[in-house]
């Protein structure tokens, strides 16, 4: 009984459990509206489409949990797609070198964000907002306004294709596999010393620094990871949807909504990367539900706006409640098997 209650508390408490409960609830409604959704092809298509946002959410998680924001990811995704099209220009042989270059570029943008934020003490909000403008302008300056060139077939493989003819499932999209691999990597990273110092930095910067933590270094690294995640997301989106000037627009806000929906606290120090990625899946599921209900896609931003306010207001309320709630009885630590 008490286990049931604690499970219920975990689901309603705004933590990792909540977002997955929400995801299941949305899926249940989707299933009710359109039972066909859970057949392999459409489910795989859903995951393929959701993969870029999930990957972006993992990258953004690192930055947010360390106490910052990265508003430049949308512009970076757009920039990467445009860079890929212009540099590859349809030549298959250039695919891999260009992808390497894109990863370097993504890391460099993250590094710049991180160094400006930590060394120059500019709030990350301003740093990454400035970066957003710089990327937006620089890319259009470089291409003369509209994207030029085209992507190679092999470049588009990752976002469009998958392992074909799998029994039961049909196609397993590369995007899904990449998402799972990077997701597992992100989870693993948070278990390393780096991950522990990162989350401690977001919780209490001073205490971490006085424990010898390299606060500025881990924060900068988080920005680099965010830049890299935007690069991968760019590769997948470019492959999936092709090149346009609008790619990535507004994505920074969508991804922050996703992370916040996952119960990750703005300001840092709380929340898990799994829940952040779960938030992205939930948001995508919600958008799918909208399609199923034939609601206009143009309403998406409104829903997103309402969700993000509700999620944060709910979390703020939960925090106020739990800080008043008396804790259950404690016993000596030795009594717990470790």
């Amino acid at each position, binding site marked *: 009984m008490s286990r049931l209650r604690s499970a219920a508390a975990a689901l309603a408490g705004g933590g990792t459990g909540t977002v997955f409960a929400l995801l299941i609830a949305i899926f249940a409604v989707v299933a009710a509206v359109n039972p066909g959704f859970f057949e392999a092809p459409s489910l795989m298509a859903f995951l393929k489409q959701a993969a870029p946002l999930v990957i972006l959410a993992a990258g953004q998680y690192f930055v947010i949990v360390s106490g910052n924001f990265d508003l430049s990811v949308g512009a970076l995704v757009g920039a990467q797609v445009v860079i890929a099209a212009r540099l590859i220009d349809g030549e298959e042989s250039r695919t891999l070198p260009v992808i390497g270059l894109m990863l370097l570029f993504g890391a460099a943008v993250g590094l710049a964000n991180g160094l400006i934020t930590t060394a120059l003490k500019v709030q990350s909000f301003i740093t990454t907002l400035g970066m957003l403008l710089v990327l937006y302008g620089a890319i259009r300056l470089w291409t003369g306004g509209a994207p030029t060139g085209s992507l190679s077939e092999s470049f588009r493989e990752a976002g469009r294709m998958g392992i074909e003819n799998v029994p039961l499932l049909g196609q397993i999209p590369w995007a899904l596999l990449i998402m799972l691999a990077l997701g597992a990597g992100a989870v693993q990273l948070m278990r390393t*010393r780096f991950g*522990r*110092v990162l*989350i*401690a930095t977001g*919780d*209490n910067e*001073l*205490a*971490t*620094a*006085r*424990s*010898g*933590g*390299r606060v500025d270094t881990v924060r900068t690294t988080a920005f680099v990871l965010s830049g890299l995640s935007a690069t991968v997301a760019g590769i997948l989106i470019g492959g999936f949807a092709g090149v346009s000037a609008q790619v990535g627009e507004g994505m920074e806000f969508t991804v922050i909504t996703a992370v916040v929906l996952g119960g990750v606290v703005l300001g840092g*120090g*709380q929340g898990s990367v799994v829940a952040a990625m779960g938030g992205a899946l939930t948001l995508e599921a919600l958008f799918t539900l909208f399609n199923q209900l034939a609601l206009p896609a143009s309403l998406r931003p409104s829903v997103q706006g309402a969700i993000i306010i509700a999620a944060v207001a709910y979390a703020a309320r939960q925090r106020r409640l739990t800080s008043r709630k008396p*804790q*259950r009885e*404690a*016993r*000596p*630590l*030795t009594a*717990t098997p*470790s």
Partner: protein
Amino acid sequence: MTESTVLTMRGIDKSFLGVRVLRSVDLDVRPGEVHALVGENGAGKSTLMKILAGVHTADAGTITLGGRAVSFTHPLQAQHAGVATVFQEFNLLPDLSVAENIFLGREPRRRGMIDRRAMTKRTADLLSDLGVDDLAPGAKVGSLSVAHQQIAEIAKAMSQGADLVCMDEPTAALADAEVELLYRLVERLRERGVAVLYVSHRLREIFDLCDRITVLKDGELVDSVAAADITPDDLVTLMVGRRIEAAFPEPLPDTDHGDVRLEISGGGNAWLDGIDLTVRAGEIVGLAGLQGSGRTEIAEAVFGIAPFTRGTVAVDGRPVKLTGPRKAIAAGIAMVTEDRKAHGLALRQSVRANARMVLDANRRAHSRARVERIPSILSSLDLVARGPDQEVRYLSGGNQQKVVVAKWLATEPGVIVLDEPTRGIDVGAKHRLYTAIRALAAEGLAVLLIASELIEVIGLADRIAVLHDGRIAGELPAGATEKQVMAYATGRSPR
């Protein structure tokens, strides 16, 4: 009711988290008197003042102000009732002018608009009334010296028509010349019939300024006497007094004082000067001194937070440059900070994550064996928690402190600095920590112990260095009396 009083407090009780801080305290302040509230650190002076200021609410007891019974739940209520408080942390906005700060929330208006001319004029009048002629009403508070900021605070208090002004250690941050300014101001208040409740450690000031002195000890009222009727020596005796002796564990039998592990020669920076200090293996050296004397500054210098800019430091005979915590940790120094919530713990992380934080943050300190030792360290400290995954914010103060100690012991340090290790924790946990400190020494660590409660330093230290105004005023051997320590700490040479 034989004599008129501005303030009468009767039977004030206050506990924090089960720790009794004030026990049935009485206080009477008469109009126009400067009333000193004295006592050792932790005697309950600040708590009493905060109750008066409406910051804390008393658990029991009555407060009568100007003949009316009052009860405050918010600082504003105290202000409106005529109690103005000048805290150590200023309640001023640095970006606003003196006049704007003084009249914040009560700006004079003319036809609905802020009347800046009147505001400036009234500020100027107020300041000249207080005998302050070198403070411009239009000056930005952030650009002022600490003394002038304090004057602005006091002027703000006066502008509210206070009958009683409380000052908490007003000279703690002042240079000598600035102290004179404050003296003049207090005199002015007295002339105007305003009562001043003056919390201070400094005997000289107390005898220079005050009419009456109330002594608190361990949360209880010791006595309330006229300043003219008591000598400084007797006052110290009252402050130190007889006490229920806290039991301190004896040094463990196998504790040897070995080689010098920490040696500071001529250490100095902006807050310290000429610090010579050695700590041997197995030795507990206590740092005593009043608030602001430089105790914490020494700890911060040794740990590289505010490094020494002069002099040398050697650890185990090797000279080290302690320019940051990482350097200090690499040299084998650990530090349990004074404010564990701000500097010691990531409160929303688990016991386990906090306990291994130093190992995680320092590659050279990290090893599998050390990580695996953590549970046994925690249980040796008798940590009470629901489990290693419990967030530390839900632990009691004493258990939080055990986590902090554990995270440093995990690094197997050679030198450990303990800055107020028992602040705000209950008696049982305190005793557990005392035993742990003894055990550390027995293991051959050099322990530098800072505690504002004199009894702790005396009860635990093998040697006591007493600080005064950023310098070591004297060293005392184990078994020194509180009176001897206080003599050095208050800037008088002991006889």
